[in-house]
């Protein structure tokens, strides 16, 4: 069956579909286009007229000096380094710990397994506000306030969400090979490292991707725990930039653009991993 016959759409319907798609694309894309185009304008172009013209969307001449100016007012490279440091450590922490925990829940029988798994799933619905204050005072009494430790250490205690995704995946792996390895005297740890992990790369990549983006975007964590501007992340730094340079729209949009572009590039490279991960969340 060809797709033409299966859909059975008349040319008129097709025109209507494309018209709807294009109309709806405008509100989705125009703000992003506006962000980039503002970042390439001079103040005269920005404050000039309040009309929407082709020239206001595609400024000519392009003014690229907002980027160096924004980088000067906001120590972007320092924030980028801080953000990447946090992203990498939390990705390692969350993926490794969640994979280990997921293996325990999906491949080893022990008393209370089902109940503990249920409790873990239930904790996902617990609002963060309930635990936020005691956790803050705990980290403060440990002398960790102002350091990255409160942002990194919890990642190493596995995320319920990733454990859930990974157990779903591990359960689809056949047990025959593991059984054979066990008969040969392999420990669970060996089976986990040598057999299960190599087969689970796509699921692990999904978790790594989500954690990377989560940390890249995280605002509340740095807001609660960081007090030294030299330690700020991009998300927190950008918000601080707004509160100090609120009127410098061109620079603000330049900073927003450089903050957003890495995520968009990541999305295009890992589109499949992205969509698969999200789809498993909703339908399982």
């Amino acid at each position: 069956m060809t797709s033409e016959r299966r859909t059975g759409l008349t040319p008129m319907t097709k025109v209507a579909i494309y018209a709807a798609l294009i109309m709806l694309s405008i509100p989705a894309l125009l703000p992003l286009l506006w962000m980039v185009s503002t970042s390439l304008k001079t103040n005269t172009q920005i404050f000039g007229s309040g009309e929407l013209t082709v020239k206001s969307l595609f400024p000519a001449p392009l003014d690229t000096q907002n980027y160096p100016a924004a980088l000067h007012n906001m120590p972007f490279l320092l924030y980028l380094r801080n953000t990447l440091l946090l992203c990498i450590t939390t990705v390692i922490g969350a993926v490794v710990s969640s994979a280990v925990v997921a293996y325990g829940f999906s491949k080893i029988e022990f008393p209370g397994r089902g109940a503990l798994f249920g409790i873990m799933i239930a904790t996902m619905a617990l609002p963060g506000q309930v635990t936020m204050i005691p956790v803050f005072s705990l980290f403060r009494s440990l002398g960790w306030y102002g350091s990255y430790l409160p942002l990194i250490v919890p990642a190493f205690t596995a995320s319920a969400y990733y454990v859930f995704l990974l157990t779903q995946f591990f359960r689809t792996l056949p047990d025959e090979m593991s059984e054979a390895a066990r008969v040969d005297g392999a420990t669970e740890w060996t089976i986990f490292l040598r057999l299960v992990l190599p087969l689970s790369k796509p699921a692990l990549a999904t978790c790594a991707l989500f954690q990377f983006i989560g940390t890249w975007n995280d605002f509340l964590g740095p807001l609660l725990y960081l007090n030294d501007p030299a330690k700020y992340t991009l998300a927190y730094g950008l918000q601080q930039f707004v509160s100090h340079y609120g009127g410098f729209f061109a620079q603000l949009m330049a900073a927003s653009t450089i903050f957003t572009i890495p995520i968009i590039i990541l999305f295009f490279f890992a589109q499949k991993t992205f969509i698969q991960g999200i789809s498993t969340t909703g339908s399982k």
Partner: protein
Amino acid sequence: MSRTSHHKARQYLTGYLFIAPWLIGFLVFTVWPFFQSIYLSFTRYNIVSPAKWVGVSNYRMLLTQDELFWKSAWVTIKFALFSVPLGIVAGVSLALLLNLNVKGITTFRTIFYLPSIVPTVATSVLFIWILNPTIGLVNRVLMLAGIQGPSWLNTAPWAFYSLVMMSLWGVGGSMIIYLAGLKDIPQHLYEAATIDGANAFRKMRHITLPMMTPVIFFNLVMGIIGTFQYFTQAYVIAPSGGPGDSTYFYSLYLYNRAWKYLDMGYASAMAWMLFLLIIVLTGLVFKTQKRWVHYGG
């Protein structure tokens, strides 16, 4: 016999060791804070000096004397009433449109998904800019139609609707989940309906929508839970609550109580009121489940 029981014990131990990272985190970052937070909600606590027991006075004060508590709770509930249903309708409609089999549809899927991956702080900053009353993008577009747009973020009802609009801009995130749900509907149901002479409308009404109800239900529950924790956008746009406190969301007020005024006992009581409210609301939603959510098939 003793060999096998020894073997079993070893196996159990291995199992507990594997889940230990989660178990430790659960005890330290969930169980202990959970009970500690109940205790703190009955104290006056400013984090610097030890907590002082004050009985139910935090709860009494926020229920009877704190106007901002009721105001922020109402702002949040109102936001849930707007953004959650609108998000479901928009998300499902977009997914239906993007599920059609026409050339280039994957490009359009990417376009609609794109806004939802823009980092929250960047989205908020972008909306501050496009909602600028005189030179912002939104009012420029309205001007093309001869409409003088409002001064969005600076006037009372509009600041609230601005945030609703912003949440709709990110609808692509849930759209992808609906799209996955649509792909899971078995094709043979439609083929059978075609043989029975059902038209497109009847297929939508009797196959597509019922089969989508579990995914809609999932998004409804997550939407309610998410709205009550809505914070970053509100904080970046208006850290002290916006015009006439119209965007003073519950979590924003809680944050300000705890970290701006160091009123952590009071904020803990607020956290518990929030938790109870979420339980009641999701409980109600779960109760309606039997009537409209279609499982199996």
